[in-house]
């Protein structure tokens, strides 16, 4: 079945980030692959990767909210230049209740930058923040009754 997920790049702390997210979302990291685990076909003649780079995360995966695939890796500047943590993309979480939004917000925004703490924003119950690792999140619940 067709699906959509989100892929996040970090500057060397992807494992710490994914461990944090697994705790927040009460889920497990399904897989971790490091750059050192990966042997490019015919790459024997290529430049040797540093031990530091080998230990970095090439891919890590988890499911949040049951079936949403969240992946992360460490960005290596040699592939595609420096990492730029933008604010043009956010992950929006629609929970089952405002109480659940409050609970997850407290966990996920800890140490981050809150732009809008959970509150009735007119169009719904809403929150907007950047977590301590630079990922942008929003919460949104429709207001009923």
């Amino acid at each position, binding site marked *: 079945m067709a699906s959509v997920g989100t892929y996040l790049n970090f500057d060397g702390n992807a494992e710490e980030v994914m461990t944090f997210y697994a705790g927040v979302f009460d889920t497990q990291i399904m897989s971790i692959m490091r750059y050192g685990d990966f042997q490019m076909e015919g790459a024997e003649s290529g430049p040797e990767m540093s031990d530091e780079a080998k230990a970095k995360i090439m891919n890590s995966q988890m499911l949040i909210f049951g079936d949403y695939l969240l992946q992360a890796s460490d960005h290596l500047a040699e592939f595609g230049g420096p990492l730029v943590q933008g*604010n*043009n*993309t956010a992950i929006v979480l629609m929970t089952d209740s405002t109480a*659940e939004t409050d609970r997850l917000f407290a966990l996920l925004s800890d140490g981050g930058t809150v732009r809008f703490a959970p509150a009735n924003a007119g169009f719904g119950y809403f929150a907007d923040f950047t977590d301590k690792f630079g990922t942008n999140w929003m919460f949104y619940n429709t207001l009923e009754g």
Partner: protein
Amino acid sequence: MAGQVQTYLTFTGRAEEALNFYAGVFGSNIESIMRWGDMPTAEGDAPMPDEVKNLVMNSQVLILGGHPVMIADMPDAALDEAFEPVVVGNNVTIVLSPASRTEADELFAALSADGKVRMPMAEMFWGDYYGELTDKFGVRWMIDTPAKK
């Protein structure tokens, strides 16, 4: 823990163009669109410049598998310090997992029009059919399907 995940994209004036582009690529309808000028104003608010009024404040389009993408414009930060400058990053990528390689090729071709192909669709070492691109609006996409045809 149940719930739904959506994606929010912020642009600096091209939101409506992007909205129409994605609706075309994914063969879907624009679910809603609200402009900055539609916002209720309170007495004493500074008048909103005309170039801001027509910008998209919030809109929604459904992409692959019905995933909702919200799209908005952030007005120029020079107009009002409340408008946070938009930084286009390379830290977030939307991953599409279509059900077939044919659909993967079609989506890749449509999304990469006038954009930048970072990795053309090809079978990868982990067995999936995979490609990467940045579209003409600066949004990053990966297309990854385990399907064999």
